[in-house]
């Protein structure tokens, strides 16, 4: 059983559309991270959310941590082809990162 469940598994949209991907768990976390992994590259940290109900914005990306700190969402506004990639959520226990399976996002021109 995955500690973190990500949905959907795949998402294909047209450039300019909005999208939301989800990361859910039955466990409570002190913090949660989102990464983006482009094809042929390693994951790159986008954001860390710490406080329940927290909303963080990174340009067109909006990250939200659930009030109960069990879930999180990533919303992309007006997606661009450069947003294509694998979006991973992860939690840290001391040094150890545990990742979800990711959502593969494809933005078509």
């Amino acid at each position, binding site marked *: 059983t995955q500690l973190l469940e990500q949905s959907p*598994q795949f998402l294909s949209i047209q450039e300019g559309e909005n999208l939301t991907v989800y990361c859910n768990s039955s466990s409570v976390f002190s913090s949660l991270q989102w990464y983006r992994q482009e094809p*042929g*590259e*390693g*994951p*790159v*940290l986008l954001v860390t959310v710490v406080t329940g109900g927290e909303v963080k914005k990174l340009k067109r990306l909006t990250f939200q941590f659930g009030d109960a700190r069990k879930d999180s969402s990533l919303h992309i506004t007006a997606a661009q082809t450069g947003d294509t990639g694998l979006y*991973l959520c*992860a939690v840290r226990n*001391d*040094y*150890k*990162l545990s*990742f*979800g*399976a*990711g959502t593969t996002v494809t933005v078509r021109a």
Partner: protein
Amino acid sequence: EAGVVQSPRYKIIEKKQPVAFWCNPISGHNTLYWYLQNLGQGPELLIRYENEEAVDDSQLPKDRFSAERLKGVDSTLKIQPAELGDSAVYLCASSLGTINEQFFGPGTRLTVL
């Protein structure tokens, strides 16, 4: 500043052959990690080094996998012999201490035929 460097980027071998992957972390990063990423999955930790010491190798399949970081800088991960199920991307990451951000290399994509 250079990021984490890995080589080779791609490797194709036949089953039962040995294979080795090399990683050079970001300069000054004392903590080094090797991860395995299967297709359609997130990375899973194989081993963590603090300087030259392997402080967590609990997830490393020791019957066929080995790793070393002799001088506490670059590291090598070896598989001998490789099996079909070892086909995956092997990622190296480094950080300055364990609480700071981990920076990932581009990975080595291994295909075992």
